[in-house]
């Protein structure tokens, strides 16, 4: 999808968005009929906000298309889990396949959208989300690098600032990279951004003006 060329909307009467509201906002931008992979953690919550009639098919890296909601009670089956190892259910039309096929779907460009978390995103869409680089940290990459290069659109969910107040949308990532120039949209508590050709377009803001955000970020914003 190309980013919206329409004018920036500043919602000053609400926001910043909370942890539940950001996935709900992402869900609005998932095209009907698309094949989508949701990363573990907060991106998984996007599924709760998808229109059941939109014909969206969820892919899970551990070998399934047509993944349904979290399983409850007697539905729980240890052989049927999602990428976060949470038990889930099948939907009608679901299919199972092995890992090489599952990642061929990603790497072969067959997924329309993936939604991932991030430590940092750069203005040109570089993604850092697998490793803090700290010496004592145990790195874990999973399927993030394959999704980053494979999905046609990579949406990121993150807070715009870290706990120390430093921006996570940056001129260049300082954390180890996951993929180069792959992120197309960034959904944060303060704003939604579309990244194209090295430019950061502000789609919407929540509780701040574009000028407020421009003063706190080290990247040029386009409205």
């Amino acid at each position, binding site marked *: 999808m190309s980013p919206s060329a329409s004018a920036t909307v500043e919602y000053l009467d609400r926001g910043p968005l909370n942890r539940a509201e950001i996935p709900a906002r992402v869900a609005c931008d998932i095209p009907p009929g698309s094949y989508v992979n949701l990363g573990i953690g907060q991106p998984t919550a996007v599924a709760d906000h998808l229109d059941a009639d939109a014909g969206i098919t969820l892919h899970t890296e551990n070998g*399934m298309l047509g993944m349904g909601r979290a399983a409850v009670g007697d539905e729980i089956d*240890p052989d049927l*889990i999602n990428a976060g190892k949470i038990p889930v259910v099948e939907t009608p039309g679901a299919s199972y396949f092995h890992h090489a096929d599952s990642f061929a779907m990603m790497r072969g460009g067959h997924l329309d959208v993936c939604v991932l978390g991030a430590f940092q995103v750069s203005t040109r869409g570089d993604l850092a989300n697998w490793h803090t680089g700290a010496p004592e940290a*145990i790195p874990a*990459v999973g*399927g993030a690098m394959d999704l980053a290069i494979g999905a046609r659109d990579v949406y990121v969910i993150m807070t715009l600032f870290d706990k120390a107040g430093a921006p996570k949308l940056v001129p260049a990532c300082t954390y180890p990279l996951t993929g180069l120039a792959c992120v197309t949209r960034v959904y944060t508590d303060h704003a939604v951004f579309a990244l194209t050709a090295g430019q950061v377009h502000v789609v919407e803001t929540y509780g701040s003006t574009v000028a407020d955000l421009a003063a706190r970020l080290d990247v040029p914003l386009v409205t």
Partner: protein
Amino acid sequence: MSTAQVVADADAAVAGVTDGATVLIGGFGTAGQPMELIDALRRTGVTGLTVVNNNAGNGDVGLAALLKAGQVRRIICSFPRQTDSWVFDELYRTGRVELELVPQGNLAERLRAAGAGIGAFYCPTGAGTPLAEGKETRTIDGREHVLEYPIRGDLALVKAHRADVAGNLVYRKTARNFGPVMATAATTTVVQVDDVVPAGDIDPENVVTPGIYVDRIVRIANSAEAVA
């Protein structure tokens, strides 16, 4: 190899494994993890193993128990850090196990390449990241690709749902995961199943892993409940 043999128990299934072997172990978390075969591997007392698995053990059972016993020198995986990976975490932080971290798609495709006779392949995954450092790259269609080599095993331990006596396998739901590619990529492939049926009882149209890839089969009753 000759046709698949149905063996009496898990110990017979892993017999002959040697110190320093590379062992491919199926499973994504505990789904599809062949717990009883891993326990049998641990009981052989072999050491210096290289283990290939998506993760690095959960809780204190299966792969985690093998790690805890000090029999694994090196682990090749995509996602070691989990809420219940305390056994690996302690070994890694104290330098008692080596880690080769591999993007999950490369892990699967490197195994597939080993089983399919592919000498190496180029893929954009990881290009420009620390996990591509030191690797050959080539620009194909304007995009940087990284050269990746196969991962071949001496032994593969796989969990499937059902086998027939010809070694044909079907899996169950997302417990399939790495099983089919690992089965192709090892010198000796050992499979634990819930059920062994006569040849002809699995519809040929539904076979996921053809018997040519399978060397030994062991029935482990109710293994699904054992990992729950």
